[in-house]
């Protein structure tokens, strides 16, 4: 079955991203396919490559990158939400004249249409948030 996942909170502050990750992992193990994980609101902060959590703690952004790499999952940060919160990829960096980008591997920035599309094209859309 084709699943879409919406993550509305950033890493660590709320359990949302943890729950979404463990759900995605279990869904894959059960033979389902994750069509897309869409990160909205503070959820875009999951896509940073600049985090350094304590060594004995999970690395939330890296964990998403690795899952996406292994299972070819589309990780999308909402562009409008990302602009408000300072999540930047190389294109956005140029477009908004910033001097750095901070997006992690396997994440991409795109529009809200990608969320609507996930709603239309998947069998189930599940939301994790605050």
């Amino acid at each position, binding site marked *: *079955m084709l*699943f879409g996942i919406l993550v*509305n909170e950033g890493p660590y502050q709320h*359990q*949302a991203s943890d*729950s979404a990750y*463990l*759900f995605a*992992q*279990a*869904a894959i*193990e*059960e033979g*389902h396919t994750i069509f897309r994980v869409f990160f909205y609101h503070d959820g875009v902060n999951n896509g940073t490559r600049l985090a350094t959590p304590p060594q004995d703690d999970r690395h939330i952004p890296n964990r998403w990158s690795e899952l996406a790499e292994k299972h070819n999952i589309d990780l999308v940060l909402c562009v409008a939400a990302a602009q408000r919160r300072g999540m930047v990829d190389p294109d956005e960096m140029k477009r908004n004249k910033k001097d750095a980008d901070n997006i992690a591997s396997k994440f991409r920035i795109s529009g809200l249409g990608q969320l609507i599309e996930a709603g239309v094209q998947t069998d*189930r*859309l*599940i*939301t*994790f*948030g*605050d």
Partner: protein
Amino acid sequence: MLHTVNKSPFEKNSLETCLRLIEDNSTLLLIEDAVYGALKNTNIEEKILNAQTNIKLYVLGPDLKARGLDKNSLITNIEIIDYKGFVKLVAENEKIQNWL
């Protein structure tokens, strides 16, 4: 239809609203801080017991365990499932409503 709630019913109104707007014969899964709603001897126990006459209740085991709770802490007839069980519920039910 599958409903999920992730908030403590002692702190927020999500579970209460869910119970007001959930159809009979639906499935309700409590995750994250909402698992506290499944505790026995609380001041919301009666609401849960009433709800159980019309809906089937599940709690997410990993979240329960994280909070120091187990089967003995809970109201009876609440099923404890793991993430695979969560995925199965989502697959089995055509629609999902997440009360945040």
